[in-house]
């Protein structure tokens, strides 16, 4: 027995020696902290997508000392973790639970109904199986058509051939709004411009088919288009790659793809952003200040910074001041409502 215990004791001592110095997030000078739990989907943190962006929103809220927010996350390893992860925060008397994305929609809605005193919010999900959402539940939605309208205008301003292209994922409302917004934006600058566009036909891998995306972008480029907008996950990434190889400007989507897809940095002018972190921080702030919105859905648009343009990065010097001014003008008009994208809330492409 001693021979067993000695090596264990040695390792145990090593563990003890390396202990200490753990620090948790603590709010300072707050009479009462507003506790926010963040539950990831199975992509977990580090996905450079929904989960990272949502958690950054919680951290941003925590960094704002006036809100007195204290946030913690739980990562889901499998879909059956969603409910117990949400329940963990409820059991620990959290004030609010934020769920990262539509995969958690059913479980979040169920928890919201069972716990009316806790606030629930979910990124990018509103079309639930159950249309009657309780008042403690808010879906965060984005006006993607506004960001698309801006990059459509930008594409038209950059085009020398008077012909631009777009490659899209599945024919679903969000993507329809991207496509129509882009086309209307281009035509707003130049009514006679030719705008190519194609939805992915198959359902199963519509957002995960880079070869198809690349081939379609090459079709459009060889047909005379000289700017490519890609909105379709990995499918879109293939289209961006085609533009990069053809030395034509390209435009990304959702996140600043300059940072997430460096392969196409040379062609990437900007990206049509959905600022998930802004939306998450905003809903937490509303809840912490006791200004919880009614209506079940909170929409994020260009006015509140929920959608917009990513930085130009390498293209900053190549996009003329004139173009920047024109885009600024469109942004102002979209904000004050004097200009409409004509694609808002669109569900079918026509």
């Amino acid at each position: 027995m001693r021979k067993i215990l000695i090596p264990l004791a040695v390792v145990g001592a090593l563990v003890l020696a390396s202990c200490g110095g753990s620090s948790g997030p603590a709010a300072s000078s707050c009479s009462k902290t507003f506790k926010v739990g963040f539950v990831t989907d199975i992509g977990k943190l580090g996905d450079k997508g929904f989960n990272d962006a949502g958690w950054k929103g919680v951290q941003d809220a925590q960094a704002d000392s006036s809100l007195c927010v204290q946030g913690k996350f739980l990562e889901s390893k499998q879909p059956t973790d969603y409910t117990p992860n949400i329940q963990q925060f409820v059991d620990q008397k959290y004030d609010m639970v934020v769920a990262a994305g539509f995969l958690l929609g059913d479980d979040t809605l169920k928890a919201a109904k069972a716990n009316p005193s806790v606030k629930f919010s979910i990124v990018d999900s509103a079309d639930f199986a159950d249309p009657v959402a309780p008042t403690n539940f808010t879906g965060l939605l984005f006006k993607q058509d506004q960001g698309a309208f801006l990059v459509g205008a930008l594409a038209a301003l950059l085009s020398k051939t008077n012909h631009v292209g777009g490659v899209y994922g599945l024919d679903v409302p969000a993507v329809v709004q991207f496509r129509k917004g882009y086309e209307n934006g281009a035509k707003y600058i130049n009514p006679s411009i030719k705008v190519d566009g194609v939805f992915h036909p198959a359902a199963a891998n519509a957002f995960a088919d880079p070869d198809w995306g690349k081939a379609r972008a090459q079709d459009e480029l060889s047909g005379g288009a000289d700017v490519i907008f890609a909105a379709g996950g990995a499918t879109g990434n293939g289209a961006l790659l085609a533009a990069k190889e053809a030395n034509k400007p390209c435009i990304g989507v959702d996140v600043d793809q300059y940072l997430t897809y460096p392969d196409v940095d040379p062609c990437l002018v900007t990206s049509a952003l959905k600022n998930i972190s802004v939306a998450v921080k905003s809903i937490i702030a509303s809840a912490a200040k006791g200004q919880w919105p009614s209506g079940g859905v909170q929409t994020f648009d260009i006015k509140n910074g929920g959608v917009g343009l990513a930085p130009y990065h390498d293209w900053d010097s190549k996009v003329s001041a004139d173009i920047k001014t024109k885009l600024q003008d469109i942004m102002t008009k979209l904000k004050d409502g004097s200009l409409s994208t004509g694609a808002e809330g669109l569900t079918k492409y026509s």
Partner: protein
Amino acid sequence: MNQRSRALLAAVLLPVISVIAGFVVAGLAVALSGSDPWQSFYALFQGAFINPRALPETLIATTPYIFLGLGVALGFRAGLFNIGAEGQFYIGALFGVFIGYNLHGLPAIVHILLALLAGILGGFLWAAVPGILKARFGAHEVITTIMLNYVAFALVNFLINNGPMVDKASSAPRTPYIDPAAQLPILASGTRLHAGLLLALLAIPVIWFLLDRTTIGFRIRTVGFSPTAARAAGISVAWTLLATMGISGGLAGIAGADEVLGVSHYMPPSFSTGYGFDAIAVALLARSNPWAILPAAFLFGALSSGSRFMQFQTQVSADVISVVQATVIMFIAAPVLFQWIFRLRRAPAPAIKIASETEGAAL
């Protein structure tokens, strides 16, 4: 100390040492990631046993480990290394959910039984493929079961991710919810603990009886001990391997159906992340003894459910808990190393012997 008690001591001591060693190494990993190992493991303990709903959640996680651990252990006893439990789990869940949401108006007991039987059938069929390949052609089951895992994942992904089994009313990729009649009853109100636990507990004596008290069990053990001797004794090695593989797959299949009927009530495309692989460790830790599957599965269930509160308290990555599990597996998989380190007398040889390809082909 006589020979027998020494062997028993080694059989109990080795797994216990493996688990402790796993925790020590994991403690180092936690410390390196900047957290306090004592605080972390205390939280793990609280999250597995003390907190509200902790114990029920641990038992919920234990349930699939029991079924899957029994399945893998049964394979081990016949000298089969079934690495395909994860795929069989998926197919069992797929069959179970299909019956679960397509039938309506049945009495609960009938609907549940049908769905569970469908799960068993799914796992059985999926495991029978490598069973036949092994028995007829001598194709090594390690290779074929691993490969069939990926076929199962891809099939499930195709069917549920926008395929024919997707719920068109939902924005998330998943099947429709199963009929309420197909849901396993909840054992304790206010928790998710479902009757599947009782089925799993029932499966332990059943598998023990099958292995130790029936002809088929005798054949399984004989083939596992020595296929050549079994053949000489007139046992059909091919049929025994096929039957073992099928039953092993059936146990994995019922685990999958049980998860659908008891926990999720629908099936998403990525249903499990490694229950079937963890089950290999459960079976190893239990040294393929059906009774010992219970504490081994309970340990893995506790690690899985306790990790939630551990992450809540320490905010370390969920992967750290995987380090505990992986280290435990590593220390079990290297018993020779341990026997050498601790100068233990050689324990009875575990019945893990992979029959060679030529043996299979010669049948």
